């Protein structure tokens, strides 16, 4: 029976080959349709991304399209990294400055308070002495200068 079928088919060999070729062609066509759909989709997405970055995908010329856009995006990335770095550096510097300033001010305040309290003690003693003698002398005047934080005039 198989032999009968084979012998019958042998007569239709050319048609069978044509059928096979047509099948392969149809299969390739379907594959190509899928590939083309994928490619169009990818290009479309690339166009959208480029438009968002602010540069046109550009040119119908396939050689140069996307080049400008890629360059622009690379620039944006570099800018972003640079800006981050600068911001971090400025922020760190501001923090350090503020802290150094506070430390210095606290130190100045402490020094001033110490000097003032030492002068006040001396003033108290000198004024008690002036009260007792009912006389104002060099020591009292010097104590007043100390309280005011002033130097005597150089004659």
């Amino acid at each position: 029976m198989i032999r009968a079928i084979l012998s019958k088919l042998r007569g239709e060999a050319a048609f069978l080959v044509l059928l096979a070729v047509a099948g392969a062609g149809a299969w390739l066509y379907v594959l190509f349709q899928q590939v083309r759909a994928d490619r169009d989709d990818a290009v479309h997405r690339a166009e959208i991304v480029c438009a968002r970055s602010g540069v046109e995908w550009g040119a119908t010329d396939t050689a140069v399209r996307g080049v400008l856009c890629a360059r622009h995006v690379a620039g944006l990335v570099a800018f972003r990294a640079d800006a981050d770095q600068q911001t971090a550096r400025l922020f760190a510097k501001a923090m350090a400055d503020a802290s150094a300033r506070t430390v210095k001010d606290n130190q100045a305040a402490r020094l001033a308070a110490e000097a003032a309290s030492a002068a006040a003690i001396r003033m108290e003693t000198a004024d008690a002495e002036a009260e007792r003698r009912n006389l104002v002398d060099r020591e009292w005047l010097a104590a007043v200068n100390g309280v005011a934080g002033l130097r005597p005039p150089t004659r």
Partner: protein
Amino acid sequence: MACAERPAGLPEDASLIAQIPTAIRAGIIRMARAFRVNADGKDRLVNWLAADSCPAPAKATR
């Protein structure tokens, strides 16, 4: 902003001896104390705005 002005104070001369009523002495002392507080505060403020503009407050000497 300028630093606090600090003029020369009272003369410290052994030959200068005076009688000053207690109330006036007290007033002089009050003004002297207020002068230091104000001057030191202003110098601190200026130094806060622009570091090292004014000399550091004098240490407690004498």
